[in-house]
């Protein structure tokens, strides 16, 4: 007993030293159980966000107003599904099977980004999502390219390459609308009004209230705090909104010379908690869509396994 706990703390010290030295931790390396659990939670949540994230924009693929926009949106949504796959594979390296990941999503045990619990009500929402939601994701993901777990860091590098195209296509949609007819401009402003605050919520609670932040920072799973990342996003977005001639819906938004950053208003944390807890406008619809997709896939997966088994037996007979 004594010896094994000594051994355990020796291993933890070596592990922490490697993390501190910016060495990447790989799947076969020893790691504290809490590190593994923390990673499974974070990476799978990230993967689920990519997969559920197909739905709000997917809602507009069939109605995209030009064929070029339709093609670009299809390419983007395809990327998001691909990101989901990279991240599921990264999670699987930690010893959890895909079926279990799906189960955790569908039972609500695992979360996904709450932003996707808001509805896409006009074409401008597709623009706003690309500009703001992918923009916020990039801020977060660039930081995660330096995360301590090798497979996660490498997935982030691949994903970041594709994300800049997502943000660009969204901003381009907003640009056309903002310079278009009165109706189009109003559509763009309405989308900004509705997506701005939920986007700021994507960065999570204030650092002081963040349940997982302490150990995540120590283990370098997270590299920058929620508030730092949120500030970075606000700072970059203000000029972009000005360029569009659209107004960010925050009366308190103001440049602070002393801090060298924009000050901004307080997030409605009641809304944050409510949406996280399931009361958002589309929580039910998003999970239901994924549940139906998964359940309707049951017979397809059964067929796939049955066919593979038949093939295997035929091969055995051939070689026998």
């Amino acid at each position, binding site marked *: 007993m004594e010896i094994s706990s000594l051994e355990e703390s020796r291993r933890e010290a070596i592990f922490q030293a490697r993390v501190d030295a910016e060495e990447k931790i790989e799947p076969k390396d020893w790691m504290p159980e809490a590190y593994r659990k923390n990673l499974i939670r974070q990476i799978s949540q990230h993967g689920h966000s990519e*997969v559920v994230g*197909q*739905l709000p924009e*997917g809602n507009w*693929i*069939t*109605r*995209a*107003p*030009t*064929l*070029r*926009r*339709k*093609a670009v949106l*299809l*390419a983007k*949504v*395809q990327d998001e*599904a*691909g990101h*989901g*796959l990279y991240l*599921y594979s990264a999670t699987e390296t930690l010893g959890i099977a895909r079926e279990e990941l799906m189960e955790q999503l569908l039972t609500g045990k695992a979360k996904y980004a709450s932003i996707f619990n808001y509805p896409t009500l006009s*074409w401008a929402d597709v623009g706003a999502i690309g500009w703001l939601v992918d923009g916020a994701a990039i801020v977060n993901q660039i930081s995660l390219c330096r995360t301590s777990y090798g497979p996660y860091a490498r997935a982030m590098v691949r994903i970041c390459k594709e994300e800049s195209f997502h943000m660009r296509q969204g901003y381009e*949609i907003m640009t*056309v*609308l903002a310079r*278009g*007819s009165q*109706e*189009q401009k109003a559509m763009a402003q309405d989308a900004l009004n509705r997506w701005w605050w939920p986007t700021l919520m994507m960065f999570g609670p204030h650092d002081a209230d963040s349940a997982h932040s302490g150990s995540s920072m120590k283990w370098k799973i997270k590299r920058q705090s929620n508030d730092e990342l949120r500030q970075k996003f606000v700072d970059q977005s203000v000029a972009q909104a000005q360029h569009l001639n659209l107004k960010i819906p925050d009366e308190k938004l103001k440049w602070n010379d002393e801090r060298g950053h924009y000050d901004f208003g307080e997030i409605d944390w009641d809304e944050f908690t409510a949406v996280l807890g399931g009361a958002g406008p589309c929580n039910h619809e998003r999970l239901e*869509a994924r549940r*139906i*997709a*998964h359940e*309707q*896939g049951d*017979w*397809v*997966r*059964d*067929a*796939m396994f*049955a*066919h593979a088994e*038949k093939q295997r037996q035929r091969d055995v007979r051939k070689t026998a």
Partner: protein
Amino acid sequence: MKNSVTCAPQSWHFEYVLRLGDNALILGQRISEWCGHSPFVEEDVAMANTALDHIGRARMLLTHAGNLQGNKQTEDDLAYSRNEREFKNFLLCELPIGDFAYTIVRQVLLDTYHFHLYAALQKSSDDTLAAIAAKVVKESTYHLRHSSEWLIRLGDGTEESQRRAQLALDNQWRFTSEFFLADEVDDVAHQAGVGVDVSLLEKLWRDNVNDILSAACLLRPEDAPLRASGRMGLHTEHMGFLLAEMQSVQRAYPGLDW
């Protein structure tokens, strides 16, 4: 059996390319409905990718059709401003997606058709069409591999999957008769070296589909004539809803840039 369409000089060429473009557009529109709703995430990627290929070829073909008309209409004019009776796609393209077996069966029937069609169109005397065909035939090769592998898994999988695949085949087979009803447009296009020989295409298609169906342990349904034709602009009742959805933004705010 021949449908009679009287063609003004050169309008056969526009019509020939337009039909190809409409097939690609309407099929791509349908496949895109799977995004985010497929049986598993790998298929979400594949469906989006396939839909994207079809929308991509629709853009090239409709732009080319517009050029043949003397640039009277852009790809978006053709996609968003025409009414139901003016679309010339095969009826099979516009049917609702159904379950996974239904979609896979439709893909096999159409991917096989497209593979042989575009392989032949690479030799078209219309250089633009030949160049488009060279790109499309590569995509169709990949699409057909994907859909036929799935059909074999479903047909030679469980009792349930076989039942679904056979049902989907029985329900959709009658729509394939439309593929090979050559009309005046096809004849003139073929004579001009722009289009393909439909009877040759039919033979290649039948042989290929027969092979896939027998590998998938599925029974080929009896041929049945169908007294409706998408190429005449006589659609199923599903088409109006598909267009209402696809064209909704353009119809609500006409004449704007997006």
